[in-house]
C-alpha cells in the first residue's frame, strides 16, 4: 500500500514536471486518486517538488476540496447558498441525513459516501443543487435526493445520475450534464452568433497598439464587477518592461448568485479563448491561463477539447493564423473551492501553486502579477466582449448601453421569480424592468451584485444597471416581501466568515464581532445604539481590510442598515436598568455548578 502510494504520487508529480508552481494540479490529482492528501502523501509531494512540507500542508488545509482525512468514494456537496435555502435546502439536507444515517460533514461507516455542504456552486437558477464529486445535480427535491443516494449505493458512479441532459453544449458527450443554460434573453454582444477566427483575423491585421486603442475606444469596462477600463489595463501591462507577460481569465465565478460565466463557458468557449488570444497579441503575452473554479470541473474536458481544436486549426500555438512571431497558448488551471480566489491577486497566488492568499496592491497585476511578470486578469465576459469589439468595432460597441457604461451585461437572475436564468441586457436597464422580465413574485428587495455589493428596496427599483448606479458583476437575487432581510444579511456574514483567508485581523475578527451584533438584533435583544455600533464596526472593517473580501464583507449589513433601517429600528428597544438582555447569569454558572456539585447561593 505504502509502495503504491509512493509510486503513484511520484508519477503524478512527474507528469507535472515536479514543478512547484503546479502544486494545485498535483494536489488535485492526489486528492482524486486517494480521496485525501494524507500526511505521507504531503511528505512525498514536498520531496518531489523540492519544497517544504508546510507549503503543501497549508495548501491542503486552505482549499475546501482538499482534505487530509480520507473522504468517501462519493462526496455529496450540498449547496447552502441563500437561494438554495429559499428553495428547500433544509428539507433536502434532512432527507439526505436520514437516508445516509450520518450528519453533515461525516462519511458513512463503509467509507463510501461523504455528505458536506458548500457555498454557491453557480446553479442558483436551478436550485437546490449539489455537486456529487464533479457532477452537478440540479432541481433537487427530498424525493430525488433519496433516490440519488439509493442509486449511488448501487454503483458509486455519479455520472450515472445524469439521465436527462441540459440544452446546448450541456449535452455534448464531453460535458454530459443535466445543467441547464436557461438563457432567457440574448443580446447583440455575447449571445449573438460567433464564428471562430473572425475576431482574430481582424486583430492580426492591426498593430498591437491599435488593438489596445480599439478596446480603449470601445469604453469596455471589466465585467467582473469592479469596472476597471479593460483597454487601460492592457496598456499598462504592455508598457511595463518585462521578458514575459501573461493573460489570465478569471473564471472563478464564486460570488453567490452568479452563474452567467458558467453559461458563457458552456456556449461561448471559442469566443472567450479568442478574446484571450487577442489580449495576448495586444500586450505581447505567450501564455494564457483560464482559472476555472473547481465547482465547474465538469466543463474541464470540454474546454480542453476546444483548446485542442483551436490548436489544430492554427488559432492557438505558434504563428497563429500564419502571423510570424505571434505565439500564444492557453492552459486551464483548476481551482479547488475557495471564494477568495476570485480576487485577482489571490487567484494569481493560486495559479502559482500556493494558498489563495491575496497579495499587497500596489504593485497591481499589470505591473507585477503571475510569476512577478506583467499580467492581465480579466473576467470571462470581458474577453468575450473584446472578441465582439474586434469584429464589430469600437463605435458599434460604445453606442450601446448607458451614457457612462458601454455595451451589454450578462446577468444571472435567481430567487423569487418565475423565470430565473441568464439575461443579456444593455447597461442602463432599470431594476424594475428586470423584475418584469424575470416575472418576479411580489418583490420586496433585490440583491444586486451578490452579497459583496448592495441590497436595495422598492424605493430604488427605478435605479439602472451600470457602474455609476447599481453596479454588478452579474448576480441579481430577487427576494419577495416575506423574506427577512436581516436573516439574509446574517446568512451572508456566515459565508464571509467561512471564506475569509484569515490573514488580516479586521476581516478575521471584525466579521465575527459584527455577526454577534446582527444575532443580537435578530434575536430581539438589540438596543438602538447597537445599530450605530454595527455601522462603526462595518466601516472599520471596510477601511482597514487588506483585500476586496474584507472590504466588501460588511456590505450585507451596511445595505440592510442603509436601505431597510426602519426594519432594524423596529427590532431594537431601550432596556430598563441598562442590563444586556442576552446575558443570562443562571446559564453562565451552570458549568461551574456541575463541576463543584452544588447550586449557587446568589443567582
Amino acid at each position, binding site marked *: 500500500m505504502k509502495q503504491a502510494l509512493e509510486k503513484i504520487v511520484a508519477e503524478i508529480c512527474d507528469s507535472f514536471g515536479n514543478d512547484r508552481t503546479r502544486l494545485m494540479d498535483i494536489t488535485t490529482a492526489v486528492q482524486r486518486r486517494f480521496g485525501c492528501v494524507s500526511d505521507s502523501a504531503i511528505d512525498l509531494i514536498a520531496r518531489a517538488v523540492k519544497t517544504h512540507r508546510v507549503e503543501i500542508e497549508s495548501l491542503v488545509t486552505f482549499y475546501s476540496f482538499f482534505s487530509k482525512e480520507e473522504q468517501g468514494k462519493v462526496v455529496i456537496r450540498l449547496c447552502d447558498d441563500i437561494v438554495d435555502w429559499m428553495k428547500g435546502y433544509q428539507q433536502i439536507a434532512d432527507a439526505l441525513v436520514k437516508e445516509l444515517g450520518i450528519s453533515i460533514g461525516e462519511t458513512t461507516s463503509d467509507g463510501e459516501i461523504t455528505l458536506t455542504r458548500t457555498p454557491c456552486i453557480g446553479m442558483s437558477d436551478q436550485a437546490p443543487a449539489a455537486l456529487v464529486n464533479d457532477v452537478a445535480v440540479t432541481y433537487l427535491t427530498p424525493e430525488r435526493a433519496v433516490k440519488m443516494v439509493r442509486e449511488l449505493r448501487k454503483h458509486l458512479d455519479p455520472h450515472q445520475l445524469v439521465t436527462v441532459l441540459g440544452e446546448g453544449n450541456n449535452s455534448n458527450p464531453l460535458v454530459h450534464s443535466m445543467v441547464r443554460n436557461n438563457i432567457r434573453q440574448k443580446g447583440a454582444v455575447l449571445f449573438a452568433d460567433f464564428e471562430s477566427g473572425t475576431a482574430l483575423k481582424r486583430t492580426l491585421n492591426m498593430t498591437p497598439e491599435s488593438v489596445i486603442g480599439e478596446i480603449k475606444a470601445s469604453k469596455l469596462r471589466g465585467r467582473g464587477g469592479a469596472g476597471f477600463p479593460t483597454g487601460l489595463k492592457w496598456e499598462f501591462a504592455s508598457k511595463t518592461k518585462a521578458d514575459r507577460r501573461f493573460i489570465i481569465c478569471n473564471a472563478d465565478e464564486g460570488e453567490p448568485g452568479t452563474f452567467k460565466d458558467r453559461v458563457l463557458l458552456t456556449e461561448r468557449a471559442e469566443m472567450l479563448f479568442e478574446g484571450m488570444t487577442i489580449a495576448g497579441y495586444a500586450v505581447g503575452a505567450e501564455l494564457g491561463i483560464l482559472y476555472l473554479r473547481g465547482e465547474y470541473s465538469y466543463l474541464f474536458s470540454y474546454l480542453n477539447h476546444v483548446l485542442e481544436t483551436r490548436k489544430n486549426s492554427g488559432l492557438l500555438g505558434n504563428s497563429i493564423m500564419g502571423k510570424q512571431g505571434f505565439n500564444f497558448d492557453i492552459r486551464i488551471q483548476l481551482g479547488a473551492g475557495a471564494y477568495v480566489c476570485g480576487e485577482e491577486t489571490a487567484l494569481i497566488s493560486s495559479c502559482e501553486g500556493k494558498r489563495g492568499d491575496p497579495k499587497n496592491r500596489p504593485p497591481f497585476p499589470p505591473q507585477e502579477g503571475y510569476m512577478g511578470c506583467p499580467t492581465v486578469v480579466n473576467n470571462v465576459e470581458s474577453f468575450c466582449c473584446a472578441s465582439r469589439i474586434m469584429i464589430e468595432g469600437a463605435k458599434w460597441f460604445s453606442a450601446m448601453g448607458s451614457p457612462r457604461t458601454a455595451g451589454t451585461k450578462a446577468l444571472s437572475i435567481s430567487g423569487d421569480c418565475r423565470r430565473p436564468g441568464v439575461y443579456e441586457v444593455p447597461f442602463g436597464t432599470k431594476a424594475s424592468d428586470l423584475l418584469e422580465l424575470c416575472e418576479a413574485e411580489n418583490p420586496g428587495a433585490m440583491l444586486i451584485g451578490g452579497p459583496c455589493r448592495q441590497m436595495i428596496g422598492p424605493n430604488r427599483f427605478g435605479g439602472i444597471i451600470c457602474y455609476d448606479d447599481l453596479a454588478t458583476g452579474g448576480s441579481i437575487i430577487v427576494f419577495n416581501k416575506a423574506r427577512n432581510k436581516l436573516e439574509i444579511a446574517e446568512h451572508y456574514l456566515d459565508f464571509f466568515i467561512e471564506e475569509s483567508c484569515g490573514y488580516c485581523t479586521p476581516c478575521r475578527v471584525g466579521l465575527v464581532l459584527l455577526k454577534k451584533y446582527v444575532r443580537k438584533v435578530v434575536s430581539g435583544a438589540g438596543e438602538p445604539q447597537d445599530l450605530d455600533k454595527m455601522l462603526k464596526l462595518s466601516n472599520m472593517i471596510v477601511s482597514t481590510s487588506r483585500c476586496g473580501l474584507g472590504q466588501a464583507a460588511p456590505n450585507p449589513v451596511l445595505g440592510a442598515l442603509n436601505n431597510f433601517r426602519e426594519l432594524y429600528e423596529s427590532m431594537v428597544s431601550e432596556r430598563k436598568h441598562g442590563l*444586556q438582555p442576552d446575558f443570562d447569569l443562571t446559564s453562565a454558572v451552570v*458549568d461551574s455548578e456541575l463541576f463543584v456539585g452544588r447550586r449557587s447561593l446568589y443567582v
Partner: protein
Amino acid sequence: MKPRIATCSLAGCFGCHMSILDIDERILKLAELVDFDRSPINDFKHITTRCAVGIIEGGCCNEENVHVLHEFRENCDNLVSLGDCAISGGIPALRNNIPLEECLETAYLNNPGIYNPSGIVPNDEEIPMILKKVYPCHEVVKIDYYIPGCPPPADAIWDVLTALLEGRAPVIAYDSLKYD
C-alpha cells in the same frame, strides 16, 4: 453636595487603578471636585448614594463581578469601562477557548507540581461561582464610555473624568490612544 465617583476592579489586576493614581498631584484637584463613593481607595463595601460616574476595571469572570457591575449600573449616571480587560476581557479571557472543566482540573487537580491528595476543588459557599467564560463589561450591562489601554494613560483618565464632571462629551486625544 459634590458629585460622587465610584470605582471597582473586577477581573483585573489593579493596574488600571494604579493608573488612576498616576494623575499625581491632580488628585488634590479631584478631591476638591468630587467625593469618592464605593472604591478600593476607601474600602466602602457598597455604593451609598447615586453617583455621577462609575469606573469599572476588569471584565466579569465570576458571579460576584456580575452583581457588582449591576450595582454600579443601577447607581451611576455614567458607566466607564476602564482598560482592556473591562473592554474585551483581556488576559483573563484567554481561558475562553478552553472548557471550564479543563481549566479547573488543570488548576487544582492534574498538573505537575500540584499537591492535592484528596482531590478537592475550592468549594466554600463564600466563594462565588466562576462563569463559563470571561465577559467584557458591555456584554453584561450597558456601558456609556470606554477608555482603552493596558493600562490607560493617566492623562486619558483625567480628560474623560473632567469632561464628564463638566458635562462635556469626552474626547481622548490621539496621542493617548496610540501605543507604538
